[in-house]
């Protein structure tokens, strides 16, 4: 049976650490990818207005509603300001269901603290915003936040 004992010297072979970098790189890539905020690609112009009395928004309990003119590459949707939720243009009447759905997807403790973030282009008419607000009232999502840029002190 000497055939099987040829190499045995009684020493433990060193554990190969060659794959450790791969594992770490995997972690690295995971973090690099995961920390990029998944932002739905905007199909509208979205220059936010500026304000200085701002509060921070807690992302975990928020859904966003975008509004503004369709941007350059979506000219076929016309010149009028449109509402965008997630990745699609929606009409005013669709807001309620989208909001309720987003709210129900939250974990239960956060549902009463649900906030709707309005990212509206500054050139939009305020009438559209009040339409959105009316829909939100009907959906009973009463906390809203007008997302703004922070105004630079003059």
């Amino acid at each position: 049976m000497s055939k099987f004992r040829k190499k045995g010297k009684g020493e433990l072979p060193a554990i190969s650490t060659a794959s450790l970098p791969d594992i770490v790189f995997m972690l690295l890539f995971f973090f690099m990818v995961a920390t990029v905020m998944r932002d739905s690609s905007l199909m509208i112009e979205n220059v936010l207005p500026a304000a200085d009395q701002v509060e921070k928004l807690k992302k975990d309990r928020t859904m966003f509603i975008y509004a503004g003119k369709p941007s350059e590459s979506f000219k076929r949707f016309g010149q009028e300001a449109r509402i965008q939720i997630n990745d699609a243009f929606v009409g005013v009447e669709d807001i309620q269901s989208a909001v309720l759905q987003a709210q129900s997807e939250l974990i239960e403790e956060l549902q009463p603290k649900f906030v709707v973030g309005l990212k509206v282009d500054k050139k939009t008419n305020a009438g559209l915003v009040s339409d959105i607000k009316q829909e939100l009232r009907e959906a009973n999502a009463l906390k809203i936040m007008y997302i703004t840029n922070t105004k630079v002190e003059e």
Partner: protein
Amino acid sequence: MAKRAAPEVNAGSMADIAFLLLIFFLVTTTIEKDKGLLRSLPPIDDSEVEPPIIKEKNIFTVLINRNNQLLVEDEEMKLTNLKEAAIDFLDNGGGTNAAGESCTYCKGDRSESSSDHPDKAIISMKHDRETSYEKYIEVQNELVAAYNYLREREAQRLFNRSYQSMLEEKEKNQFSKDEKLNDQIERIKDLYPMKLSEAEPDKS
């Protein structure tokens, strides 16, 4: 030629390099936080109850027309003066609140023709459908600034610290509730409750 195996490259330090990169990315990726003006909408009220009658002098009307001009208390006003006017109105304290107390902390003119008490003072804002959103936010911002200014003043007077720092501390300790701090914040909010009502724009 003697067959010599190429010496193996020591890859032991590779892990360190990768860790360094990993930590670098962990530290430098700041998740951009959105900021904005937080407001609450009024719930829909279907009841047929007559709204209580509010005295004209307790309402501060702000109108924005379709040309983004500002009409405050029936006079045209520049945006830069709005904050001042709103502060004067809120801080007037010319009368008593619902409980019959007069406003002891107000530093306003105590004029008969302006608001009775911060409890009663209501800012009513109305805009046209064609008002630009930018203007609308600017006006909202100025009105919120007026409230913040007064709250800041009271925080300095009562607790000798800034209202902003109290809010920040509350934010920081959101998992370990500090009852005393919360009470203080509530007290200041009660001194100048934010009563900002928005009227529906006219359908045209």
